[in-house]
């Protein structure tokens, strides 16, 4: 018994001493990249890295001719030489939006020498910070905060590991300021839809009001569970209804269904909703769990469904049949695809920054699809395997390709993209 305890103490002491001395080291030279780090990568921020791209400018100067920069770099996944590993913080691999993003990123990885490391389904701040640590150990250069619970703390932790962090914290200026102050040049910034979640709820309500819906049932998802995203969407929807009523429409929320499909309580609530005489069901997450019920109850023609969802084959036939009339759609290419040009610029030493030299929030349009034509324009494009924002568009925003790329060109490109600009 004694021998074993001693050997165990030894093992524990060994592991912790390495951690302790490791931590002294990092504290010692906070500034420079950790020399003893195993990965052969050169220091990104020390000296401007000059791999491949012959343009060697720190700040994006306007007068460089675009042609020679783009000429010798081809979009076949060869640039940049050293693979850029990126961590992706996700919360539900089975959700349609995350699967759409994964498909888009796979396409971009064929064009740029990138590798995306997807997280497990993270539910809380602690596992989010653990995953960020994991990415650092795996040699990632940047982390995309698609899911964010720990707010600016994630950006600061990334900075500790000398990794870039992309994430707009849902447009929360206060957190962005704290991230800029805490993470410094490692914070790239992120998109904002002007309080995205609130807007999504509001535009859904507005669209339903325009389509003359009076009695609406709202599925509030995680609002009752205090999940911030759902609380603001519900708030947005309720305000949207109030605005419609002030504007003369007769509209009211008849019933609210809480929680997620699969629980007995949700099943019971769904059945009682089918009895009510309502003309619309709006959901602050997807609405697929209603299709089967609505079809069976034979109310497919009299009932309209609205949701915050995706353009995907699940909704295709229901949108075209008119059952689903409104989809508030965060197009994955514009909302999340913008992380790639920001990361590629930062990694290749030409980080895009705002006037005060920091990471910045940039507005992006949230698309509200109300007609089948709009829906099919995006769906057919994806179906045929091409994309709204192609690899060439992204290359145009990377200074290494196109010397004229500036923060403004980036903002204009992504800020202006609406459903109608889809060819």
């Amino acid at each position: 018994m004694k021998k074993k305890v001693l050997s165990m103490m030894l093992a524990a002491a060994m592991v912790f001493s390495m951690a302790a001395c490791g931590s002294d080291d990092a504290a010692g030279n906070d500034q420079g990249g950790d020399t003893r780090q195993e990965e052969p990568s050169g220091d990104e921020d020390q000296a401007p890295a000059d791999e491949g791209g012959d343009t060697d400018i720190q700040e994006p100067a306007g007068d460089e001719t675009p042609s020679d920069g783009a000429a010798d770099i081809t979009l076949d996944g060869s640039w940049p030489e050293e693979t850029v590993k990126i961590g992706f913080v996700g919360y539900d691999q089975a959700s349609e939006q995350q699967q759409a993003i994964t498909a888009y990123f796979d396409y971009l990885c064929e064009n740029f020498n990138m590798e995306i490391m997807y997280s497990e389904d993270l539910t809380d701040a602690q596992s989010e910070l653990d995953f960020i640590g994991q990415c650092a150990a795996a040699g990632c250069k940047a982390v995309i905060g698609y899911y964010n619970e720990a707010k600016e703390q994630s950006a600061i932790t990334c900075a500790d590991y000398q990794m870039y962090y992309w994430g707009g914290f849902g447009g929360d200026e206060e957190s962005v300021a704290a991230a800029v102050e805490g993470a410094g040049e490692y914070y790239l910034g992120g998109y904002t839809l002007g309080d995205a979640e609130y807007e999504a709820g509001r535009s859904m309500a507005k669209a339903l009001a325009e389509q003359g819906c009076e009695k609406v049932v709202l599925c509030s998802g995680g609002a009752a569970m205090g999940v911030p995203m759902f609380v603001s969407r519900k708030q947005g929807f309720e305000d949207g209804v109030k605005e419609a009523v002030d504007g003369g429409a007769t509209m009211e929320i008849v019933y609210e269904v809480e929680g997620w499909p699969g629980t007995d309580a949700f099943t019971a609530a769904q059945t009682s909703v089918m009895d009510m005489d309502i003309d619309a069901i709006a959901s602050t997450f997807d609405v697929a769990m209603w299709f089967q019920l609505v079809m069976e109850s034979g109310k497919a023609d009299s009932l309209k469904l609205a949701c915050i969802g995706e353009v995907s084959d699940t909704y295709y036939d229901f949108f075209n049949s008119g059952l689903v009339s409104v989809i508030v759609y965060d197009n994955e290419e514009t909302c999340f695809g913008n992380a790639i040009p920001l990361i590629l610029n930062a990694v290749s030493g030409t980080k895009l920054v705002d006037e005060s030299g920091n990471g910045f929030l940039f507005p992006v349009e949230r698309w509200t699809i109300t007609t089948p034509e709009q829906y099919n324009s995006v769906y057919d494009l994806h179906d045929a395997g091409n994309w709204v924002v192609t690899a060439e568009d992204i290359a145009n925003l990377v200074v290494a390709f196109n010397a004229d790329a500036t923060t403004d060109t980036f903002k204009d490109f992504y800020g202006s993209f609406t459903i109608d600009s889809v060819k």
Partner: protein
Amino acid sequence: MSEKKSTKINLGGIGKLAPLIGLVLVILIFTALTGGKLLSVTNLQNMANQVMVTALVAIGAVFVYGVGNFDMSLGGAVLFSAVLGAMAAVRSGSIFVTLVVCILVSVAIALIKGIFSAYIEVPFFIFTIVLGSVISSIVLVIMGSETTVYLKDAVREIPTFNFTQMTIINVVFLAVYFLVCLFLFNYTPIGSKAKMMGGNKVSAKQSGINDKKMHVLTFVISAIGVALAAFILIIRTRTIGSQTAGSVGTDVLIALVVGGMPISGGPKSKISAGLVGALTVVVLNSGLTMVGLSTAWIQAIRGVVFIVVVLVSSFSYRGKLLPR
């Protein structure tokens, strides 16, 4: 009957050391697979932070499992003390108050469990599963519309800790708590009493061991671990939501079992099971993620490794009947 040296012991001996061998093996395999990145300084700090919550709760849980109480509500307990602790932090702005609140809350839950397991006979395993889900729902009812608790809106600025300071705090908390538990389990009657109760409730009672006192005492010791874990969660992530510590219940169970702790407690319980198990699980997770496998493969491998380690450590007690 001739008393030949029993080979049964060394077969059991291998069983006893299996968890430690498992840990070393996992470290070696993944250091090779990740080309040494597993033991890079960053990752060591990383793992030191990740192991914290599971290890603290698992070490305390050795006492509770040892007595034969199979506690599945530890995740709920960590969540509850973290939420109330964070709320106290926001209102008081002092770290000390936060720690005190965490301890009080988790000890209160421990007393409830103590009363039910000592005075009211109940199938404890199923009771704690239900208790765990009830606690998480009570948290939602308490938090109501306040959604998530952010430390940054605290009355007075709660000191933030940079990365390295956090690692040091973690190491100190874990080392101190582990040594205290090691002392209590191996160098005071508590450990031996727990082992006897876990082995055979009736004969422990007939030897004068006060089982009611022991039930409550073991829950309180485990509650200290839960409180420390909740405290560290608060100061590290500075954000406590309704889903915090969601997977702690099963992580602790996996860590204990991988650490060589018998499911029904009893004489083969050992305090090292908590720490060795937690370390193995963290190294496994970290290694698998770094090798770049998809989440599905990571979980599949984790399931298989979990069963294999349990199989090896179960060689010391194989009977004719199917275990229950």
